[in-house]
């Protein structure tokens, strides 16, 4: 028992580990709020801290670029879009109650089980010994750019094409049908 505590203190006295613990607490707490909160808006705002924490993980892993990109895409883009949807479509100033019909419950349970399966698979299959990638200077975007335009060019282009199509589709959906 004593040895465990000593080991724990040892681990905790390292800056990176402290940061990891703090971030994990933040992520878990906010994710819990996001999942359990009755107010959709509050859940969405809690998600912000979860995403921020994820960016923190990337920093700990030595990839500043990924961390910033996480902020740009998930916080600046997706979360704000989400918020727009929630704030504009819900009746303001009222907290919503989750509409838990039986059918939803069943569907939700099935989805949860499936997702859990995927998660377990990932946890089991993932090589956990990830450290800071050796040699690569933190924050150098050149190799990432090279990879994107070289090895993963096709995937990159396909993703870009898909997003463009989504944009066009969105524009088509919201256009005014006046004439």
């Amino acid at each position: 028992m004593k040895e465990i505590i000593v080991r724990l203190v040892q681990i905790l006295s390292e800056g990176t580990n402290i940061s990891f613990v703090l971030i994990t607490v933040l992520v878990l707490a906010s994710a819990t709020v996001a999942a359990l909160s009755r107010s959709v808006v509050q859940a969405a705002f809690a998600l912000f801290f979860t995403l921020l924490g994820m960016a923190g993980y990337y920093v700990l892993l030595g990839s500043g670029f990924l961390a910033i990109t996480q902020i740009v895409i998930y916080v600046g883009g997706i979360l704000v879009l989400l918020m727009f949807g929630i704030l504009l479509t819900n009746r303001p100033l009222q907290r919503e109650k989750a509409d838990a019909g039986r059918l939803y419950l069943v569907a939700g349970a099935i989805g949860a089980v499936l997702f859990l399966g995927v998660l377990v698979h990932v946890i089991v299959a993932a090589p956990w010994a990830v450290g800071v990638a050796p040699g690569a200077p933190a924050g150098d975007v050149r190799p990432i750019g090279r990879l994107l335009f070289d090895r993963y060019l096709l995937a990159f282009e396909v993703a870009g094409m898909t997003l463009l199509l989504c944009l066009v589709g969105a524009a088509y959906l919201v256009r005014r049908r006046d004439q």
Partner: protein
Amino acid sequence: MSEANVTETAPPASRRDSLRTEEMLLNMGPQHPSTHGVLRLVVRTDGEMVRESWPQIGFLHRCFEKIAESLPYAQALPYADRMDYLGSVNNGLAFCLGVEKLGAIEVSERAAHLRVIAAELNRIASHLIAFGTYALDLGAFTPFIYGFREREMAVSILEKLSGGRLLYHYPRIGGVANDLTPEIASDIRAFLVQMRKVWPEYNALLSDNQIFVKRTANVGVVTREQAIAWGFTGPCLRASGVRFDLRKDQPYSLYERFAFDVPIGEGTKGTTGDCWDRYWVRMVEILESCRIVEQALDGIPEGPVLTKVPRVLKLPKGEVYVPCENPRGELGFYIVSDGDPKALRIKSRGPSFCNLSIVNEICRDVLLADVVAILGSIDIVLGEVDR
């Protein structure tokens, strides 16, 4: 006409159904910064779009008509001043003209000239406030101060002339309160020079500014037919392309002697009858008023300024309505007398009240910011709307 409008302005059904967002009821006012006083505007909004807006009035109701019926005419006059507190001389003038017509009271030529001078100076001052507050509504603070700088000159002149700075009580039954001195005359000339000098500056700063034009052109368009149907008068009516000015069409107080143009909206920056036109008509009217003041000052004859009227003025039995061109439009007092020193009935037809009625008609399916722009361009004074 109204039916055609509804189909024109309402969003197509498909869009309303497919992308429905929650509608919200907003209370703009009575303490909202852009309602020019204590107007309450209930606005039904869909996101930034305003679907409907109902003006709720009466927060400044002071029973003007009832008070005026319970006082002798001369004592009711200061209350008339207080209706449209920005065009106080014009209000008093309208009331005096009504009483004088019913009582067949003569006014000397000098007094009539002085009335024109004061009324036009007051019109300039009022339009300068309209200019300044409109800029303020649209988020520009500085033109407001510049407008007030010139207005201060006009107000100082009126103060020297009448003694008041806002509520002048200058026209009296039978003439005006005080005579013009050479010093005041030179002040007025200096003011006209200054006004003409800074007028282009106003335009450089605001009228021609692309942001301002974008905010006002093609916004809140009132067509000629709409303007007439809703009883628009004054600059708002003229902005819709109707060349109607009581000073020209039913001249009173010697207005027929002065040469001036009646500016109308021509859709210079957008559509005829949009906010920019309403604003611009006022701006041009400032110059026209300067012309009138100059002519009146040049042609002013000598003579008394106040005809002697009996201390207890009893008007003959009868009724009268004299319309007058207030800075905001047609202001008239309908006076019914039964021979008593007090009127039997006084009813005022105020321009702000009538102009305001169109708000729900044009503030439909516009952006929230446009409501502010439209309301400012109509240039209402709540003191007169509520009386």
